[in-house]
């Protein structure tokens, strides 16, 4: 399904700046969200997750914000580095009826320039 989508297909930022990647979802019953990073030729790598009973969660240099009112999710990367260049996907859990599989959006390509 395409209930998870991204506002921008590409994002270019300068090294050291903060990056913000946005995501909208349409299923108000979704209760678990994940951000993945995918480098070329590799499988998606887990970055951070958040449950619907939270509105913010922080990791190392990353923060995920969840706004359930407008069904919006964002990933903030602090002090972006060249190694952060990749495609970023948000995903929502499909629940028990789908074996707790994830539904992915199309992805945002992040390019970090020196």
């Amino acid at each position, binding site marked *: 399904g395409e209930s998870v989508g991204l506002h921008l297909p590409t994002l270019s930022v300068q090294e050291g700046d903060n990056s913000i990647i946005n995501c909208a979802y349409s299923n108000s019953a979704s209760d678990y969200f994940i951000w993945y990073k995918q480098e070329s*030729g590799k499988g*998606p790598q887990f970055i951070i997750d958040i449950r619907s009973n939270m509105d913010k969660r922080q990791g190392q240099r990353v923060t995920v914000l969840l706004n359930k009112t407008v069904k919006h999710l964002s990933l903030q990367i602090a002090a972006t580095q060249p190694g952060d260049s990749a495609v970023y*996907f948000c995903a929502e859990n499909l629940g028990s009826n789908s074996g707790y599989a994830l539904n992915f959006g199309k992805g945002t390509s992040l390019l970090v320039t020196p």
Partner: protein
Amino acid sequence: SQTIHQWPATLVQPVGSPLSLECTVEGTSNPNLYWYRQAAGRGLQLLFYSVGIGQISSEVPQNLSASRPQDRQFILSSKKLLLSDSGFYLCAWSGRIFMNSPLHFGNGTRLTVT
């Protein structure tokens, strides 16, 4: 620690030939297992998931099938490949104890059908 293996990494097959992609997980028991396909520059499409040996659920009707002969082995097959089967195939697992948990992906198989 848990690891997931997919092979082969790349595969070129002619139209009409059979397909068998294998995925194995180590370091965990009773995982949920998943097959996804990713078209170039696109998000991930869920193909199959399995919550136990011999239990396969298909998300989209297509030319592919899946099997789970052992707890930590997941196989994706086709009797006759189509050009449209080309893509990047990703296997993933998740822990069944925590139902809302991340999927962990292998590094995928790049399939080109010629």
